[in-house]
C-alpha cells in the first residue's frame, strides 16, 4: 500500500494493522522518519509531490523491493505539505519470512526515497528556508543497491 497524505498519521496504528493476521511472515521491519526541530516551532518542513506521478514512482520502487527481497507485503506512507516538529514524515513497513530480507528491503526503500523519489523537501529554519538535496552520504547509500 502506497499512500501520500497531507494529514498527520500514527505509525504505530499502521504497524498494528500490518502485523495482524499473518502466519507465514516471521519478520516485520519498519522505519519512521520524524521531523526534528525545536518545540513550539510551526511547520519545520514542507514536502512537495508531483500529483499523478509521485505515487506511481514510489509504487514502482515498492514493487522492485518486493520482488528483490521476496516480501510478503510492503507499505509506504509519506507526508506531503507542511509538517510540524515531531511529526512522522515517512513510514516504511516490510514483511518477509526472515529478518535479513525485511531489514534490507526497508533500508533499500529508505535509501531510494531519500534520493530517487519525486519529492522535494524545504526546511524552514531560523536562518530562512532551503531546499534539501541528497547528501553525498545519501548518494553513496543508494549506490550500495546498484
Amino acid at each position: 500500500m502506497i499512500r501520500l497524505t497531507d494529514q498527520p498519521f500514527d505509525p504505530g496504528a499502521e504497524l498494528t494493522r500490518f502485523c495482524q493476521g499473518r502466519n507465514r511472515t516471521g519478520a516485520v521491519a519498519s522505519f519512521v522518519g520524524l521531523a526534528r526541530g525545536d518545540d513550539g516551532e510551526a511547520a519545520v518542513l514542507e514536502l512537495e509531490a508531483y500529483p499523478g506521478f509521485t505515487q506511481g514512482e514510489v509504487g514502482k520502487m515498492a514493487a522492485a523491493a518486493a520482488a528483490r527481497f521476496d516480501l510478503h507485503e510492503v507499505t509506504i506512507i509519506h507526508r506531503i505539505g507542511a509538517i510540524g516538529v515531531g511529526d512522522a514524515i515517512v513510514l516504511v513497513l516490510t514483511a518477509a519470512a526472515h529478518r535479513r530480507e525485511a531489514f534490507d528491503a526497508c533500508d533499500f526503500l529508505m535509501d531510494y526515497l531519500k534520493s530517487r523519489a519525486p519529492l522535494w523537501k524545504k526546511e524552514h529554519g531560523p536562518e530562512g528556508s532551503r531546499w534539501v538535496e541528497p547528501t553525498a552520504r545519501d548518494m553513496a547509500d543508494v549506490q550500495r543497491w546498484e
Partner: protein
Amino acid sequence: MAHVLLFGRLADVAGWRERAFDPAPATLFALKSLIADGDAGLAAALDAPGVRAAVDRTLISGDAALTDGAEVAFLPPMSGG
C-alpha cells in the same frame, strides 16, 4: 501547447510553478531554451546537475519530441524521506 510544471527550487527561481507555452516547441530542449529565455538564473537552474525532465509523466534522458498538449515537468534533485 505545452503545459510546463516546475518543482522545488526551480519554481522558486522562476517565480512560477505552472505555465502554458503556446504553440509547443518541437522538442524538449527547444522548450527548455524558451522557458529560460532571457533568465540566466533559470537557465542555470534547469541545467544544474541532477535536474530531470518528465514528459507526460515519464522520465526522459536527453532530448525528446513534444506533441501538442504535452505535460512537461522539470524535477530538481529529489529528496523524500
